């Protein structure tokens, strides 16, 4: 007997649980946009190459166009709609706004979700391809413009707002490094705990 090709699933998105039927072919991107009316997440290439559809899964950035919705059940999903604190913008959003880190704005939700994760990854000590010495004894590299460009290379901007995007990420990272500040808007383990399982529950 052929296995069923659709399922009823529950997705945990921005702290809310949504139960919905999905054809297994549905990507998380299409489920967000077409079934849940969360249209902040954008569809660009639909092939994992442009980053417009970037969301956070268990606190880590991922491209939702290559993530099957059915396989996202049990993960803690954060989209651009879940980044701000009510009407109060997240510092990364404010930095993009203040420094003109966009032109048309289509790639911006993906840029911001990616930037949130870049700041967390850097704070957790992750090296990048721009890091001269990856050995742990070499310490954490400074989040230089070169490091930001490499770490953000999965997000394309066809308007070419890269110069301002780099400045916005740098400013947001500086603010997040201040005592008492946190860049984390979401409700899951970030990159600081490699391999740590998500608890699947939202934190108030």
């Amino acid at each position, binding site marked *: 007997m052929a296995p069923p090709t659709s399922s009823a699933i529950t997705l945990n998105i921005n702290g809310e649980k949504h139960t919905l039927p999905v054809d297994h072919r549905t990507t998380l991107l299409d489920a967000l946009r077409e079934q849940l009316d969360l249209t902040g997440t954008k569809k660009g290439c639909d092939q994992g190459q442009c980053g417009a559809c970037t969301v956070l899964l268990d606190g880590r950035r991922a*491209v939702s166009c290559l993530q099957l919705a059915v396989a996202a059940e049990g993960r803690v999903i954060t989209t651009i709609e879940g980044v701000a604190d009510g009407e109060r913008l997240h510092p990364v959003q404010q930095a993009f706004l203040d420094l003109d880190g966009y032109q048309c704005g289509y790639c911006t939700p993906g840029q911001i979700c990616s930037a949130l994760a870049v700041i967390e990854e850097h704070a957790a000590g*992750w*090296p990048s391809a721009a890091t001269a010495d*990856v*050995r*742990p004894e070499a310490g954490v590299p400074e989040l230089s413009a070169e490091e930001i460009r490499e770490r953000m*290379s*999965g997000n394309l901007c066809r308007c070419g707002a890269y110069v301002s995007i780099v400045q916005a990420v740098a400013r947001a990272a500086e603010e997040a490094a201040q005592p008492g500040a946190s860049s984390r808007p979401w409700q899951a383990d970030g990159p600081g705990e490699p391999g740590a399982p998500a608890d699947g529950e939202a934190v108030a």
Partner: protein
Amino acid sequence: MREFGYRRADDVQGAVALLAADPGARLLGGGTNLVDLMKTGVERPALLIDVQDLPLDRIEVTADGALHIGATVTNSDLAADPEVRRRYPALAQAVLSGASGQLRNMATVGGNLLQRTRCGYFTDPAAPCNKRDPGSGCPAIGGEHHNHAILGASAHCVAVHPSDMAVALAAFDAVVTYETSDGPGELPLAEFYLPVGRTPHRETALPSGALITGLRLPPAPVAAVSRYRKVRERASFAFAIGSLAAALDVRDGTVQEVRLAFGAVASRPWRARAAERALIGGPASAEAFAAAADAELAAAEVLPHNGYKVALLRNLVVAVLTELTEEAAR
């Protein structure tokens, strides 16, 4: 996309049983390559077996000093791991040079080993391709092949393997472990990828129905001084047009041990054993490095538009071994 069933496996035995029961089944790790190929119709599985919940997400040092890397460890966690960065820096560099931060968070070690070539004829279901449709021909040989193989190819396929990670693994003698319904098995990476020959559609020596459970990296003190250098057409987020994983142990100007593996030149990561043999016991000099590269690249067979890769690899060998010689002297 063809409709498909979906099952999430709880344990390795359950995943292997599901795989054995359905020849149309495929394993789903991060999905960064498989889902993309399903969208274009290159892959048409009847059932996806999701392995994300399998307990294969650990990196552990064993009593014999080897490093065990689980199959569902993400590329991000592999590259961030302190033991990997300390003991095999070229492996961390190779993984960091691949894809984007988003894709590295999704992609798994097992899936990375099994990712498919990005040859434009393979990924276009309307084109002939011996790898996708055996016997249909290889348009790349007389067509677009500036990024195709110069070593180990055949008249049936000239595609290159896209993985950066696997190049570093080849240099460090990694062993792939797997599970089947008949029990466990393992394959050294040198035997994991099959020669192209007349059967480019047969890519690995994994038995049918096998689930990769992980990798074993044997202790390799030489790997502590190692580097991965990747050349590509833009500075980031692109596949290699040529790459090199290298490790070097030099004492008193003499090469004690050396590891060299080339990427983006063959259907598999290319361990450059002829070059290694030429270097052992000899001087650590630019002339010796160039001669060793030439010894390996003497077997190169170039097509009209990919001959540049011979000079590229030769220059990579000289540059990276020179840097490693200087690093070892510090």
